[in-house]
């Protein structure tokens, strides 16, 4: 029976004897008989870690998607993660530490988080960033809670251009908070905002770019927020952010996003990294942890989690967020990855993504049966309309080793306001800096073959 226990039978005996006991059973003797498990757990017997590693490798081998050229994006991006980032982010001091409750022995994680906050702040253009949330969806949910609390209102005007899964999560949690979420549909790929939003709107939420890849004019969203006294929440793509106007410069009050592109592998969707930044005056409503700079008893610079009074362990039922464990390791990883990229590298990556996407877009349009979904500008992700159902096309592209994108319909439910009626034929295509000319060629060939079929 493999375990990681240090105890030898003799030690067990001695320790039990110290307690006046002779068997492990006695440690559990005070459990009511009815709840004591008699027969043991119904699990397969334990196996050595090497055997289990073999099994897990075999499972891993059954994920054909892992070895394909990946043009799927839609909120999860296949960026380069260099050896140095892997090496640093996997240092066991970071991996096996707990939440920095004792700052004197946690300056490593705390300072890395302080640096991460700085980076998110610069990316978003807003002065305050927290030390991470679970993922982009969680960031959206928390941002709605923040806005509702800050404005004392409960209506949310939500662009259908926000990632469908995030919107779905928002709806799920609204069942608890009671927020009324009103979606503004996409028309030709961009949000059609209500003209007269009415009373009680806490937040206007928009994605920039939106989940189909399109850049929307945020002046309209800002104007709507102003008109309704609401906060403007902008969901960003942090890589595209290196090229496009900062959310803050459009007037965002809260910026949210998915931080996975910074050093975290695709990971079948998690663990990812929820980005969250706010205006200075919203800091006391910030969900999650935030690290601040201070001094130690000897006057030396030190970092510590601060404004703890907001958090659930102190504020309890009056807390505005319940988040406790977050995604610190991914935040540290993001700081490392951004440190690796540097200002110039980040911009180059974004430019490569964009150049590749625009080239692929043009090449795709030359294929009969392929059309742009909408005429709006995009950065590194775009939507195509195909002559055939997107899922079928993608399936046949997969036979050529190409993960050709994400079928928009696979992300959204029927009747979702983000796709014009139908929408079975829409595919979202993403290009990253990892794609090189032969990859684009392979894409074009696979798509051509698939559409023709």
């Amino acid at each position, binding site marked *: *029976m493999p*375990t*990681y226990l240090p105890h030898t039978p003799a*030690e067990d005996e001695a320790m039990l004897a110290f307690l006046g006991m002779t068997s492990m059973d006695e*440690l559990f003797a005070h*459990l*009511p008989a009815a*709840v*004591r498990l008699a027969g*043991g757990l119904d699990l397969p*017997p334990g196996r050595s*870690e*090497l055997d289990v590693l073999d099994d897990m490798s075999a499972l*891993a081998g059954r994920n054909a998607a892992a070895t*394909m050229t990946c043009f799927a994006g*839609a909120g999860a991006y*296949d960026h380069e993660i260099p050896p140095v980032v892997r090496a*640093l982010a996997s*240092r066991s*001091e970071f*991996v*096996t530490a*707990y*939440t920095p409750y004792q700052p*004197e*022995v946690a*300056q490593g994680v705390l300072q890395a988080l302080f*640096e991460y906050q700085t*980076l998110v702040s*610069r990316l978003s253009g807003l002065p305050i960033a927290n030390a*991470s949330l679970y993922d982009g969806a969680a960031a959206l949910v928390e941002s709605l809670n923040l806005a509702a609390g800050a404005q004392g209102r409960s209506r949310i005007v939500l662009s259908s251009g926000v*990632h469908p899964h995030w919107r*779905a*999560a928002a709806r799920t*949690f609204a069942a*608890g*908070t009671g927020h009324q979420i009103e979606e503004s549909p996409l028309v030709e790929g961009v949000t059609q905002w209500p003209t007269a939003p009415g009373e009680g709107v806490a937040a206007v939420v928009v994605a920039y770019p939106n989940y189909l890849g399109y*850049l929307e004019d945020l002046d309209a969203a800002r104007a709507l927020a102003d008109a309704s006294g609401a906060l403007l929440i902008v969901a960003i793509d942090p890589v595209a952010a290196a090229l496009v*106007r900062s959310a803050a410069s459009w007037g965002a009050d809260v910026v949210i996003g998915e931080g996975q592109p910074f050093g975290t592998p695709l*990971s*079948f969707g998690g*663990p990812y990294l929820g980005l969250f930044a706010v205006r200075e005056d919203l800091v006391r409503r910030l969900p999650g*942890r935030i690290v601040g700079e*201070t001094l130690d*008893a000897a006057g*030396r*610079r030190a970092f*510590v989690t601060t404004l703890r009074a907001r958090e659930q*362990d102190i504020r*309890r*039922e009056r807390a505005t967020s*319940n988040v406790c*464990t977050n*995604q610190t390791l*991914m935040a540290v990883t993001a700081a*490392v990855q951004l440190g*690796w990229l540097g200002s110039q590298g980040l*911009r180059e990556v974004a430019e490569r993504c964009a150049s590749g996407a625009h080239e692929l877009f043009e090449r795709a349009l030359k294929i009969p049966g392929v059309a742009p979904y909408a005429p709006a500008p995009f950065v590194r992700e775009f939507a195509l309309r195909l002559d055939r159902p997107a899922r079928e096309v993608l*399936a046949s592209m997969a036979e050529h080793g190409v993960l050709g994108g994400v079928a928009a319909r696979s992300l959204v439910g029927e009747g979702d306001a983000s796709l014009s009626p139908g929408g079975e034929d829409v595919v979202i295509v993403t290009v990253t800096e990892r794609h*090189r000319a032969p990859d684009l060629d392979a894409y074009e060939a696979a798509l051509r073959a698939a559409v023709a079929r």
Partner: protein
Amino acid sequence: MSAAGGRAASAPLVGGAGEPTMFELSAPGRRAAQLRATTVAARAIEEMIPAAHRRLDDLETADLAERDLVGHFTRLSARQYSVDLGAYPLGSCTMKYNPKVADEVAALSGLAHVHPAAPASLTQGWLELLVTLEERLCAITGMAAATLQPAAGAAGELTGLLLIRAYHRARGDERRRVLIPDSAHGTNPASVTLSGYEVTTVPSNERGLVDLVALEERLGPDVAGIMLTNPNTLGLFEEEIEQIAALVHGVGGLLYYDGANLNAILGRARPGDMGFDVVHMNLHKTFATPHGGGGPGAGPVAVGASLAAFLPGPRAVRAGDGFAWATPERSIGRVHGWHGNALVLARALAYIEIHGGEGLRAVAEHAVLNANWLRRRLADVLPAAYERPCMHECVLTASALKEATGVRALDVAKSLLDEGFHAPTVYFPLVVEEALMVEPTETESAETVEALAQALERIVARAHEDPAALHEAPRTTPVGRVDEARAARHLVTTEDAARRNGLR
């Protein structure tokens, strides 16, 4: 000039200086990144992005050579305590040893490099892994079905409460309140509020357990349920759990199990058998996935058969010879951007498969053994708040010590750092004064637990001799006691704020 990237003075090994931030190390023009050669033609930004959307300024992050990047984060890591360095007896957090094999599992390229939207036909390995884990978790907890989406315990709590809500609603039953013992973890009440319910606190009795009389007083037809952890946050098993279950179920309420303490009962008892209807698990506690300095975790929620139809979706399910995604018919919806913290789930499954049922039971037994041994060993040093058999953790109190010497639980905790141990959880649960919540976990040896006891003994002895010294602890750490009040008063959370405040 920027700081010296190759200067190790901030590593505790040498020197004693502070570590510059990556921004202090940054020098314009430096870079680490080497991008692959590409033959995709670069396009001018003007060709791609309309002027109205173009970034107005150049984004400045931090510019470091690879050497300086490595130095910086290696030195930061040297300023960080971790399980791999030593014991971390943080009650409630279950900081046990994280087997290295799980790191290799999580790094398997066939797991790590899979896009979450790839079709099920191309991700059968992942779906099988998720289904298997769900089955294992159900077997361990005695439940019928589970969702793996919640990204941490608190997310699991909220998910579970929304399931309870959906369950009642589906029966046309709008309830209002959720009961929580006064010893509960802060996430519990916070989650209740977010689920749209009101918290009703149930006091603990003098034995540290739910006061049955008080419970009964608070029950009524508007009670949606009760959230308990068992063992509770005092490390004590709720021995009257059957009665509690009967009472709550009696008014139509459901029982929610906060699984943060599941480590104590693995293979010895199951929440399902105790009458719980909804259970969350903290895989990062019980199943040894590393905490990552504060996350990621994973907080799957398992439910009884009557709640299965409400689970979040899509869920991986068996379908013929293979696996597919399916959304339960009355699903509350999605609670995660994708499928949950998948790589954390993979780690946990590996841990479970290695241990098997017997191994997991041994885990619980030794966790409980270590805790009880320590409690008894310390009886004359720092008494337990409740002098009775504990489970995997025990709550000590420094209130007598404080009275006698002025030394508080916090001082004891900080002094422990100088002794080479991480501090216990302090001032939690709130119902115990000067609480020190100690959880040795099963992966610490008898020798380690004894050394911890001796260290506490020394600290208490010193408290009587020289209390002032303890107020000044720790002294051997990279920084001394940190001024938390100042951090909140002068809020500086970014390098840019530090610059604006003249700190750079």
